[in-house]
């Protein structure tokens, strides 16, 4: 069912993005990460991603074991922890925090570059630039993959408590849903993410709808937008020529 539409998460985001996402979502201090809580949330997302057959990269699993290792280290009294080299703190979270901060720095630099990219869209050289665009008013950000997964887990909660790893029937195919979603969006300009899922529909259908959405986002046929972080997500057609 999902074979042809195996979404490569690499094209979206990685384990560090997920961790930063969870840290921001829970508004926890990056210098004092509640490892136990974050680890269990991380593992939940991993489960969801696996269930969606998102082709979870090995890096996500490596990070999971790193988190669990840190968790176990924190259970030991400080003097029994193996001595760390090069770090003047004995906190087992130190390396991870440093990696997160370093990555966060580049994420912010990337945002600065993105601002410059947008500014350039208002400038034309003598031979008209082909890279034109037409975008509505600002203050709307593109939605990250984890926002989508969060929204998706809400849908699943509504759908009931069946085993998430059940084998889905082949009644709904990603291809069907691809055209279904595109049809809806041709008629309406914008649709709320949650409205694309019928309440009470079969879980297989929900998963297929979600995969179709990811595929459409990857193909840049649609875009997911959010007015502010953790707000409701809406889906729009990317206007083509």
């Amino acid at each position: 069912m999902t074979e042809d539409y195996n979404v490569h998460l690499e094209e979206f985001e990685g384990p560090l993005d997920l961790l930063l996402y969870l840290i921001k979502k829970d508004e926890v201090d990056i210098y004092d990460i509640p490892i136990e809580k974050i680890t269990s949330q991380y593992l939940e997302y991993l489960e969801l991603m696996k269930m969606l057959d998102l082709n979870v990269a090995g890096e996500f699993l490596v990070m999971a074991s790193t988190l669990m290792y840190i968790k176990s280290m924190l259970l030991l009294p400080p003097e029994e922890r193996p001595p760390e080299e090069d770090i003047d703190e004995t906190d087992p979270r130190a390396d991870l925090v440093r990696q997160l901060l370093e990555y966060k720095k580049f994420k912010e630099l990337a945002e600065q570059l993105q601002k410059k990219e947008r500014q350039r869209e208002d400038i034309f050289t003598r031979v008209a630039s082909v890279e034109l665009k037409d975008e509505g008013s600002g203050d709307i950000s593109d939605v990250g993959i984890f926002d989508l997964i969060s929204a998706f887990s809400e849908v699943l909660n509504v759908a009931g408590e069946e085993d998430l790893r059940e084998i889905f029937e082949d009644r709904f195919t990603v291809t069907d849903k691809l055209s279904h979603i595109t049809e809806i969006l041709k008629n309406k300009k914008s649709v709320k993410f949650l409205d694309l899922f019928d309440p009470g529909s079969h879980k297989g259908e929900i998963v297929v709808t979600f995969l179709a959405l990811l595929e459409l986002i990857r193909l840049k046929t649609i875009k997911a937008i959010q007015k502010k972080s953790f707000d409701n997500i809406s889906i729009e057609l990317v206007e083509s020529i």
Partner: protein
Amino acid sequence: MSGENLKNVIEALLFSSSKPLGIPEIVKVLSVDKNGSRSEIKKAIENLNSEYNESGKSFFIENIAGGYRMITKPEYAEYIKILYQVQPSRLSKPSLETLAIVAYRQPIIKADIEAIRGVNVDGIVKTLLEKDFIKISGRKDVPGRPFLLATTNKFLEYFGLKDLNELPKISELRQFSIVK
């Protein structure tokens, strides 16, 4: 060549080119006839810009990617966009992040980008190479002699940067004590 004539030739050159022109290129073109020194050329470009500004032209000359280019003022974008209803091709977040890492840490090997991003970047590096935003700038002198990656002039142009010094400073970001 008189100052007036020099200025006009430079204007004609800039006007007819969509790519930024470097001073050396302009010097070369002028040398066929008479010549203009680097400083004369720079002065002429400054004069052109003040003229455009005073007479309220819709365009000006920008200093970008090591060269000069005539572009429209941003305030006319809304009209020009109506004329060319084309989709923007924007870079994805992972691409922007990877570019940021290359830009600030260049020259850098792929493995070091991966260490920062925490994921494999084969696909993204390939796309960025194809789009000419980054280039292979040499090899690192370590076992395996991996390729070093660096940003290109196209990168500077795309983001509207004169040179790499114009990259947003890391200190302009919110302060973190990254180094203990």
